[in-house]
């Protein structure tokens, strides 16, 4: 059984683990680190429930090996909340962007990637940005509104910060 010692940063915290080469990043996050906010929906790279940020880029963590994250930075849904909820989390709450909530962590991480690159997306751009994430409940309408809520809020805070 091939194993490696890896060190990575998850949500700002440095962690070292001895992992099997074949361990998937999503299993490292959920099983070794007990961060169960990241979900496994399909395990076949389709649903996006497992989405995390790897060095700031949204990826499906069921399709990356943990060893590939050695020396890198991972952000999961648990890393989104600061002093208060992140505007995206707040948006999903305010706009009823979730029903069962299974897709929500992935939706939020994909939306984070989108807003980091495009702070003021159009509705089409939001739909495009979350098109790798499946939701069986909401019909997406309120998810789009949640992302718009976050986009507005984040822009207000940047403007205030700039004054």
């Amino acid at each position, binding site marked *: *059984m091939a194993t490696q010692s890896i060190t990575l940063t998850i949500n700002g915290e440095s962690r070292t683990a001895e992992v099997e080469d074949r361990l998937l990043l999503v299993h490292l996050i959920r099983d070794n680190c007990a961060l169960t906010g990241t979900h496994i929906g399909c395990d076949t*790279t*389709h649903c996006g429930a497992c989405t995390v940020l790897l060095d700031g880029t949204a990826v499906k963590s069921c399709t990356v090996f943990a060893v*590939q994250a050695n020396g890198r930075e991972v952000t999961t849904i648990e890393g989104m909340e600061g002093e208060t909820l992140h505007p995206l989390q707040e948006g999903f709450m305010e706009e009823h962007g979730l029903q069962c909530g299974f897709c929500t962590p992935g939706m939020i991480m994909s939306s984070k990637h989108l807003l980091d690159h495009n702070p003021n997306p159009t509705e089409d751009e939001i739909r495009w940005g979350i098109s790798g994430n499946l939701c069986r409940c909401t019909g997406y309408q309120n998810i789009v509104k949640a992302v718009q809520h976050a986009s507005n809020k984040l822009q207000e805070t940047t403007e205030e910060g700039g004054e």
Partner: protein
Amino acid sequence: MIPGSFNYHAPSSLDEAIKLLEDLGEDAKILAGGHSLIPMMKLRLAEPDHLVDINGLSDLDYIREDVGVLCIGAMARESALEKSELIAEKYPILKDTSEVIADPLVRNLATVGGNIAHGDPANDHPATMVALDAEVVVRGPGGLLDSGGRTIAIDDFFRGPLMTALAENEILTEIRVPCPNGKSGAAYKKLERKVGDYAIAGAAAVLNFDGDTCSKAGIALTNVGPTPVRASEAQDALVGTSVSQDDADKAGELAAAASQPVGDHRGSEEYKRAVVKVLTSRAIMKAKERAAGGN
């Protein structure tokens, strides 16, 4: 689903990667974006003993023009192609293609090199690259005088489903696309059941004009054969015409005749041929519009 056990290697240079592939032999596989390979490993359709991860070879991650040719490094991600201004302006057919590959999350990791090296006729870049008359640059083991490099014409690259001209110890390092020359335009059209699905069928068209007359045409098809299919008769039929709607439709019919679809959950053979006909005609008309300065 857990992939079988393997040993992971992360070389930091091309030479080191080639040496590893040479030493490990046929039991090793290259890991690029991993978005074809890892799903196959989870299903145990691939069970390599060794993975050589080439994500550390950042010098293979580029999109740039050289004299008369666009060079795409094997590790350029689909998302980079999708966002590149150079591509949007001068090679919109490549933007057409990368935009319809999988979904944005997959495109953040999937590489152009992997899309071609995988040799999957369902992948979208192969047909585009055939229509564009691209070349594939590969590196393998070689002595001091011989850099081990060779260039393969795209028509010689795809050998069958998941089979290519690459030897086991070779790495695809670059794809070279001729720069558009004179009045020309190109487009890719794909029909998919939903975002993230492979093509029911896809058609790439590249047209060159001498005045208003088509002087050269490249037409190739996705997912309707064991490899990307070059529709030579459709190409020939366009040359010498002004590429009217009728000419495009006729070429579409010839492309449908050249396609070799198999009926499956994406549609019957007959349906796929009808899709090829329509998509080919649309790609041709879009290429013509772009040649006339549209986008």
